[in-house]
């Protein structure tokens, strides 16, 4: 409790030092011990200002600055570490104090000590006002504590219905997709309906010896390649290509009466 005594005496630097009661001393002591409880230097200043027991508008900023500096000094003596912003405030208040005590320098454009002090007073008053407003707000009848909402909430029933939509384009694209789906598979030649030129050539070579008269190349298609359009088409192409090959070899003659007319071949007699 020795430290406490020190602090109590430390508060004597204030203007009310002479009339300090035991209670005041205790309060000042508590200030030091509870320094953690302060919400920053402005809060501390506000608390200190209450010891002046005057309206905040009449407060002596000079006295307040001295109180604060005294507080910081005591904290230093007690080896209580103060956060940096408390020290910054102390430095600023020391500066303010010198401004207030020294006659103003007419050459400088810097704000006067009075202006700075007035602003600090404004800040304190504003903080105090916000603190009171906060208390008033919290004291209002509050929802869930004093005032209540309907307990049996009747929820809105939502009837969901889904409307499906498709456009003509969707429809056409879907059809195109279905009809071309095979094309998007890895490409595998379907040889079942495909006659190669070699096949046609082998067949033609074997048969051409008998072809004395002009005949449509389709006559040379195997029976099972005549009907189905896809097979017939492949046979036509392969046999035509084979015919050209044989014509080149000089084994057959080839003719077509007109555009799109049947292509005919016959054996070429070699003299």
């Amino acid at each position, binding site marked *: 409790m020795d430290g406490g005594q020190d602090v109590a005496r430390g508060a004597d630097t204030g203007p009310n030092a002479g009339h300090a009661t035991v209670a005041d001393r205790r309060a000042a002591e508590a200030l030091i011990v509870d320094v953690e409880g302060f919400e920053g230097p402005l809060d501390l200043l506000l608390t200190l200002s209450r010891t002046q027991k005057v309206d905040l508008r009449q407060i002596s900023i000079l006295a307040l600055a001295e109180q604060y500096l005294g507080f910081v000094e005591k904290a230093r003596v007690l080896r209580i570490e103060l956060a940096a912003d408390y020290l910054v405030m102390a430095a600023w208040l020391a500066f303010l104090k010198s401004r207030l005590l020294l006659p103003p320098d007419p050459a400088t454009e810097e704000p006067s000590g009075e202006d700075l002090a007035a602003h600090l007073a404004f800040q304190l008053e504003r903080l105090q006002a916000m603190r009171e407003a906060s208390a008033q707000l919290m004291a209002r009848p509050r929802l869930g504590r004093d005032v209540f909402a309907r307990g049996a909430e009747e929820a809105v029933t939502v009837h969901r219905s889904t409307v*499906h*939509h498709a456009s003509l384009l969707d429809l056409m694209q879907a059809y195109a997709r279905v009809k071309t789906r095979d094309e998007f598979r890895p490409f595998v030649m379907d040889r079942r309906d495909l006659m190669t030129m070699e096949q046609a050539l082998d067949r033609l070579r074997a048969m051409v010896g008998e072809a004395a008269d002009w005949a449509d190349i389709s006559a040379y298609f195997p029976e099972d390649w005549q009907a189905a359009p896809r097979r017939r088409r492949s046979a036509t192409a392969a046999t035509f290509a084979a015919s050209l090959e044989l014509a080149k070899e000089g084994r057959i003659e080839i003719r077509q009466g007109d555009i799109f007319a049947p292509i005919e071949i016959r054996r070429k007699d070699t003299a």
Partner: protein
Amino acid sequence: MTDQPETAQFDAASRAEAERMVEALLFASAEPVATAELARRLPEGTDLARALDDLRARYEGRGVELRRSGDSWAFRTAPDLGHLLERHAVETRKLSRAATETLAIIAYHQPVTRAEIEEIRGVSVSRGTVDQLIDMGWVRLGRRKMTPGRPVTFVVTEGFLDHFGLSSPRDLPGLRELRAAGLLDNRPPPGQGGEEEDAQAQDSLFGA
């Protein structure tokens, strides 16, 4: 409340106050409140029965009503206003791919059996898909096919034509038009079913 000494005035004030209290209690409660529970929560000497009567009369014909169920009391929305607490949320969703394809096949090939649809799509068609299209009013049953088993066929409806702005299913663009429109990028392999036009043209080229 009032401090008037006249009994009548005091009585009127306390009667109104009792009604207010019951009102607040019932309003704030999540569950209907039993008469006994109300009595327990109200100041002693409150004429609860009268307060409930007053309250019931006050809410008569209002948007909410005081309702009794068994021995408990609660505020409930007036039955005729129930519709205000309903919301009809209509969600527009794109028709699924399976449904769109099935619909397209029916439109292009109608009348078409389920087996035929499956053959064209190359996958089985779920009952739900066709049912959905029927539900939507875009597809209906056509005549049975005169083939073994007499399978049902599906055709598109007037509603379908309406929705897609077609005057007849024949107005559906053909594959060539689809291709011209860039909807069919690849040349189809020759001779695939449904490409009669193409096959025709080539066949005639080769003199078929």
